């Protein structure tokens, strides 16, 4: 690292000093809530896929036995 780079590093460290911050609480209860909330949430594209499938089946009902066979 040359002198110019060292100056930039020094300026950065002055403006944004190193952070040595510790976690001051247990995040598990928050994590658990997130897990419950996210597991129950069905992403929009899953709904879109279901809708697409339903439309496809309505348009060509003869594929229903084929689909059931593969399930």
């Amino acid at each position: 690292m040359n002198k110019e780079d060292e100056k930039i590093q020094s300026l950065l460290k002055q403006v944004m000093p190193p952070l040595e911050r510790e976690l001051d609480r247990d995040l598990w209860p928050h994590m658990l809530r997130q897990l419950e909330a996210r597991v129950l949430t069905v992403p929009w594209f899953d709904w879109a896929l279901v809708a697409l499938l339903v439309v496809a089946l309505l348009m060509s009902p003869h594929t229903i036995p084929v689909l059931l066979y593969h399930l």
Partner: protein
Amino acid sequence: MAVLEQQSDLLQQFALGDLAAFETLFRQHQADVYRWSVRIVRDPAAAEDLTIETFWRIYRAHARFDFTRSFGAWARRVATNAALDHLKTARPEVALIQDFPARDAADAAVRRDIRERTQQAFRRLPAKLQVVATLALIEEQPYKEIADALGISIGAVKLRVFRATRQLRKNLKQLGVEP
């Protein structure tokens, strides 16, 4: 030996999707993940959210986890990616504003001006250069650790540090700051 076996069992259980094993791993590693995230994003509240996000990604990917490898290293890599995604979308002015309190009232305005311009120059860097610059230049983490966390080679880390410094110098010059 028994401790190692216990840990290996724990990782195996986690890989199979066991919630209790995940809880144990969460409690063992949450502080490390938080510390790493806060270093990158420099915002304690965002780092808490990123810790949760990191473990959510870990939980979702449990089936892909190779339990013969280090959970801590994997968690750190996931945390780095989560922090990178955060930096790509975060509003720049919020995070750094409290980092540099003026100690001397006389030159407070000048200091504030330099601080703001430098932060602005820093935030103009692409997110992946910001991460490397923060970890290498500010936090002075070993290149090996940065490389592991980003999943790239040490050579690639050095190259990114070089590019970040060059870009930062250019940005500072544009904003009228002479380091």
